[in-house]
């Protein structure tokens, strides 16, 4: 097993995908399906953020900008052109990657704190553009009128079941792709830069190039998450690109764990489940969420998966 980690990952992904696809055959639950659709968008987003935070030590506060850019690019392409859905989705991801390249070119040379703040500033700039460029984006009302969900190989994405299946496939493939990036020599290079950038530089690694590549890849995957989010709300809204959304991804990463690949996925699942349950019961959801995060930060002192992994290690030793 150790010798074929890629094979093992693919196997886990395949099993997870089969299970997800089989569930509706046994039991149809619209709430569960909506939950998985939302998890798929948010998990891609949070995991892509963790490529930067956990993988490269680059804490970006403005990652939501690419989530929003993906959503807007996709929704606009679907509304304004006759492109088929996968082509529009790929084009949206490409646009997001270009956006990430431009932003990254400005930010990646900055030190940790300045990097965090400049990415946040860039997000606020992007948010302001959405709000002011009304003729294109609809301003603060959002991009209205629904996304025409053109049929895709017999899939009608207006139907909840088909959207669920589509999102499950995209999420699993997306996570698998990011897992490969993290496990590749490139991923190892990023971790080396994170741990000791001087030494990495002496070993001949071109720091800015590796960081910029990571930034663009992370932006592209966040854009993919944004595409799924746009499909779910059938539109694009400025809130998707606003800074509290970046905060949500940071929470998801913190709750799930930074050093474990599936941490952000688990964090997303906790965050969204908490949101769904708590908003049903009380209007003070912010308070409950804050207490849970405090419990994680002060009690576990790390994300859930990191905590469990360390405990297992501790038990073995």
């Amino acid at each position: 097993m150790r010798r074929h980690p890629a094979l093992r990952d693919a196997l886990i992904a395949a099993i997870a995908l089969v299970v997800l696809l089989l569930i509706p055959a046994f039991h149809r639950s619209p709430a569960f399906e909506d939950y998985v659709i939302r998890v798929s968008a948010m998990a891609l987003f949070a995991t892509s953020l963790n490529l930067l935070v956990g993988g490269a030590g680059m804490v970006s506060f403005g990652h939501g900008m690419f989530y929003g850019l993906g959503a807007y690019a996709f929704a606009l392409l679907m509304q304004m052109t006759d492109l088929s859905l996968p082509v529009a989705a790929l084009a949206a991801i490409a646009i997001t990657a270009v956006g990430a390249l431009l932003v990254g070119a400005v930010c990646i040379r900055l030190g940790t704190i300045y990097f965090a703040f400049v990415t946040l500033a860039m997000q606020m700039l992007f948010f302001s553009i959405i709000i002011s460029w009304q003729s294109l984006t609809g301003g603060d009302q959002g991009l209205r009128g629904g996304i025409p969900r053109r049929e895709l190989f017999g899939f009608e994405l207006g139907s909840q079941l088909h959207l669920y299946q589509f999102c499950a496939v995209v999420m699993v493939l997306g996570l698998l792709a990011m897992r490969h990036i993290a496990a590749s020599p490139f991923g190892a290079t990023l971790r080396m830069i994170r741990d000791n950038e001087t030494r990495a530089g002496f070993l001949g690694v071109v720091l800015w190039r590796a960081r910029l590549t990571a930034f663009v890849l992370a932006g592209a995957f966040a854009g993919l998450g944004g595409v799924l989010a746009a499909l779910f709300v059938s539109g694009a809204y400025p809130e998707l690109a606003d800074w509290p959304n970046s905060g949500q991804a940071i929470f998801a990463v913190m709750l799930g764990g930074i050093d474990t690949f599936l941490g952000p996925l688990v964090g997303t699942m906790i965050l969204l489940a908490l949101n769904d349950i708590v908003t049903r019961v009380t209007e003070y959801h912010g308070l409950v969420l804050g207490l849970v995060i405090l419990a994680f930060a002060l009690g576990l002192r790390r994300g859930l998966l990191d905590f469990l992994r360390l405990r297992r290690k501790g038990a073995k030793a």
Partner: protein
Amino acid sequence: MRTRKIGRRTLLATGTAGMLAAPWVAGAQAKTLRIGMQSILSGPIALLGTSSRNALQMEAERINAAGGFLGRPIEFVYRDSKGQPQEAARVARELVNSTGCELLIDAEASSGSFAVQEVVRDLGVACIHTNSETSSLTADPKIRVPTAFRVARQGVHDAIAGSTYLAKFATDKKISKWATCSPDYAYGRDTTAQYLEFFKRAKPDIEVVTQAWPKLGQADLTEVITKLIQAKPQALFTLLYAGDLSAFVNQGNVYALFSQMTVASPNFDYPVLTAIKNLPTGIQSATRYLETFPDNPGNKAWGEAYRKKFNEYPTNWSWQNTVAMQFYEAAVKKANSLDGKALAAALTGMKINTPFGVDGTITMRDDHTTINYAIGWGQTVPKPPYITDVKPADWGRIVELETEWKKEQHYI
């Protein structure tokens, strides 16, 4: 030992009784008709949701006392969307798919209501938007949805009514130099432009000497106020609202702004009027909701009942939600069904008697939006009723200009 045995038996008996009774209990629950209501119930604009919810609570009591809908008592399920569109879409789907709501009241503000609109398009359930004033929600045929309706004031109606009133006011008082001061985002800029357009159509000789755009929630308005005073306009038109508007009046009082120009705004409603320390006399204002306009016993009694029950004044959102339930009540009776399509057919073109209509009726027009609701303009006085000498708007004129506007937008 003995007591223990009895305990077990008691348990057995209760259990059996419970099992036997279960179908009845379940039956009773299924008989209740659940209506989903979503809005912003937390954060700085929670009043939107809470004053809507209050009104719906009163309606539920009234309707249940009269036998409910189709003989079933109604029950509201309230959900907070926090004003986030993706959350609004999720909540709408959850209310219908998981909570079993058969009707929807969407009390979201702007962007949330557009997200709900798309969910309703997919689900085909009946939905009434009660708080979104953005005209395109129903006016644009691309955005309109077969089973979704709006029971609320609409931006374009207010703009026409307001500019018609202000044009006459300006002619009578010989006012030609105007300034504007509105919040710096889509609503403020678009709607100001729309008011000015209709205003200039009615009175071509007006001149706009300065325009100020304070940020939403800006605490210190000194700079804005001094800029307005220095421009020396004869009158000021403002679309500031809620906390921003009361802050503007309170700070404007310090600079004696209200003695130097006539101020006009469509946005003085009870929450604002009661938050101002010294309300100046003679501000020209529309009535978003007023107990004394339309001046009829039904409106007065409703306003008083609301105040008595919740110890605060009702808002514009309160009457809109009330009328939405009155429409549902009439439509369910007429269609004898809760099916989205049947209700849509019943609601389209429906006219109901209600104290909130300008002549005692409100009509749901074919384009799924209400007309003939109360729009009036009057002037402020420092004590209740706060706005006096209210002149009702001419709905014939509103519909005429609205039709022209729709043609210009290529909606018809």
